[in-house]
């Protein structure tokens, strides 16, 4: 394990994504989505490392968003990562929230749902309440978090309850409201991670650095190397001539 700083992680992830040469997805946004999740101790780096191989292969195509009913949008990400599309889909969703008190966004055929965290936290900072819920094929099988407006971190709930339909394993449901969203009954979930716990982890990470697996760090660093150009005498001159020291 090794300690890295917030800025260091943001910069490296930004470079790693840039190295993929994708046209969909914004390196600075993605870097912050990963780092925000890592800062609260929810394994943002590990999720990103897993995503890297798939991000390389994804097709750069726009997502389809459909107004299924008033107050309900369905987005089809065609098997892509939410990293590359969530900001644009959320922009569109917020547009549709104008004049309403709430809206639900169902994102289907998507990956890396944990990494939505940072973007949803931003909505709470804008005065909106957010609830995100999804199912996994592995533990924890059901995740929900609620961020009421103004909250810096969510209340996170997890359980081993399996999805009722296989399609749910690649879907993410996000409810956005101008009103507070009630927290679920604690009995519905096996584990509750409080916003205070997340905030404490975050504060520790700022003060003492973020602990990351060195192997993960090296994998991201290797991906970031894709932006670099081999050096030559000509390229060395491209930085400005080096002159003798005074």
């Amino acid at each position: 394990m090794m300690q890295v700083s917030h800025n260091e992680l943001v910069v490296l992830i930004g470079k790693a994504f840039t190295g993929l040469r994708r046209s969909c997805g914004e390196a600075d946004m993605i870097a912050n989505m990963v780092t925000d999740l890592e800062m609260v101790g929810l394994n943002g780096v590990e999720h990103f490392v897993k995503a890297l191989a798939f991000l390389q292969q994804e097709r750069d195509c726009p997502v389809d968003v459909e107004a299924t009913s008033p107050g309900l949008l369905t987005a089809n990400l065609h098997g892509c990562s939410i990293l590359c599309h969530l900001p644009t889909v959320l922009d569109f969703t917020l547009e549709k929230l104008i004049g309403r008190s709430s809206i639900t966004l169902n994102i289907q055929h998507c990956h890396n749902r944990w990494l939505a965290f940072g973007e949803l936290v931003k909505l709470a900072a804008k005065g909106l309440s957010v609830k995100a819920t999804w199912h996994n094929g592995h533990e924890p099988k059901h995740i929900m978090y609620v961020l009421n407006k103004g909250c810096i971190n969510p209340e996170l709930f997890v359980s081993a309850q399996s999805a009722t339909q296989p399609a749910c394993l690649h879907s993410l449901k996000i409810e956005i409201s101008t009103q507070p969203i009630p927290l679920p009954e604690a009995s519905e979930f096996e584990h509750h991670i409080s916003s205070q716990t997340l905030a404490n982890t975050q504060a520790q990470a700022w003060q003492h650095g973020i602990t990351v697996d060195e192997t993960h760090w090296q994998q991201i660093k290797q991906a970031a190397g894709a932006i670099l150009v081999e050096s030559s005498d000509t390229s060395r001159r491209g930085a400005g001539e080096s002159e003798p020291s005074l």
Partner: protein
Amino acid sequence: MSPDRLGAMHQTRISFVRSLIRRMANQNWQTSQYRWDLSEHGFGTAIYRLTTPEHHYHLVVFSDEIADDERNDRVIAEKWDITFALVHGDVDDALLAQLQSNVPLQEAGRNTSKVLVLARANKSVRVFDHLVEALSQGQQPDSQVLASVGYILRTTAVYGNGKFGIADFEILQDNHDFNLSFSAQMCAVYMLRQFSLDWIHFLAQQQGGEQAIQLARPLQRYLGVGNATGLGMAPYLINHPRIVDQWLSEREKAIAAISNKTITPSGCDTITPLLQRACLHLQQVVTIDAHQRALNHRAVSEIETVISTLHDAAKQHQSWLQWLEQNQSYSYETQEIALSCLLELYPDDVDSFENTMNADENLTLSPGITVCDLQDVLATRYRWALDIDFSQPENTYWFWYRSEDKEEPRMGVRGQEPGEDRELGLDIAYQVYQLNLALAKEPSHSTLAEFLLKQPQFRSVARRAWTLGHCPMGDIQMNVLSQSALPMHLLRCKLAMFGATKFDPRSDRWVRVTFFQGAPLTDEIHDGEWLFPLLPADHTDTHANNCVDTTSQPEDNA
């Protein structure tokens, strides 16, 4: 703001070095030599302690022997004469050992969040050797040798904000010593200046024994810390546009806060010696760059004219704004010098702007924006980009990339050099141009969110253009792909905001400057004025030993 004006900026009293020294003086910060463990040849470890009202810090300096041919200012260097770190709190043996193993490695080392600043410096061999030799023989140095360089040590990188494991700037937000942008870095450089003086005194003593003398204090004050800055600073500015906007907006607000004041005879009497001092400073600047020499020469002659018009302006009860407008017929260098001098007159109105230099860096969109709204922003705030003819090869001549050599930013000629496929996204003008073309194909009443859903590749530049389009100063108006682009302008802007003086371009992508030249020494820190440093007329130890008496007489705000 136009690149040419950015490329003519000078230090002002809200530049970061000035803010730092004011804070050090106002809060009575104390520095002292804490440990001096150097060999007779000057190699080893030195530690300085800094005590502020709420905290204490240590500057840990490592001096290593390197061969002359290993001394390189570029980021690709792997050895330096001096490496150093500014550490928050105490340095015990374990931490010192850790620093000793990592700080000399710089980018190749790892540090902890106790380290606020990580940096390195090379010596000016000419000045260093001359000083040690002269002082060891009991003689003061040839001041012209000092004037031609202006420093003993030249930093080649000063890292903050989380680089290589050190503390993020974010955690300094509640630290009242270093919560302003770059203040920790500036402080580390200021303390390094004291080390550089102690270092040559130590070596002169080692060589000359009882015969050795100390450098005259006026000459000590005259020596700052050099800095060699290359292309790397340009991508920083382009990638942090809101920082640039904030710095320049606050500067403009400071100017606006005083420019409607009436020119008084007293104001003329205060600004005149400052302008004269600027002339003398420019005459003393030694630069190998013929263009910069010509600019300095022209500014000197223009400033003399500017001075001659001042008393008439006062008699006519003109405002400083009118005076600044009249100055627009002169070169940017002259205009910027006049601004720097004017800001000195009103510290009570100006100095508070130093506290609002930190920027919110977010680039955001908000609901309700239509395609037409963004088109309007582009038409009004990005006309400079929309008017570029990108079908002309000279407008896309360069591409920027990072080299495998320690990720050094470089420029390559498009179509001739390898690396275009890994081009850095610094082509803001071109991206804006493309965005505008794409928007033109959309119904103007449709929402931007709908457009970006279909064409997500434009979201990044749309965020930037929308945000900067609503910022007071806006985006940097430079097409960095253009054959005629001068990255030097960007370097100069940032260095001036830091408070650099003595701009000495070494090429169109490389500049040497000096920090803290003329600043008070660590045992006499005071809120004095040291705009446009001058070579002391003599070596006697008085504060009023400059060629021109520039003792600040703040203008009566009434």
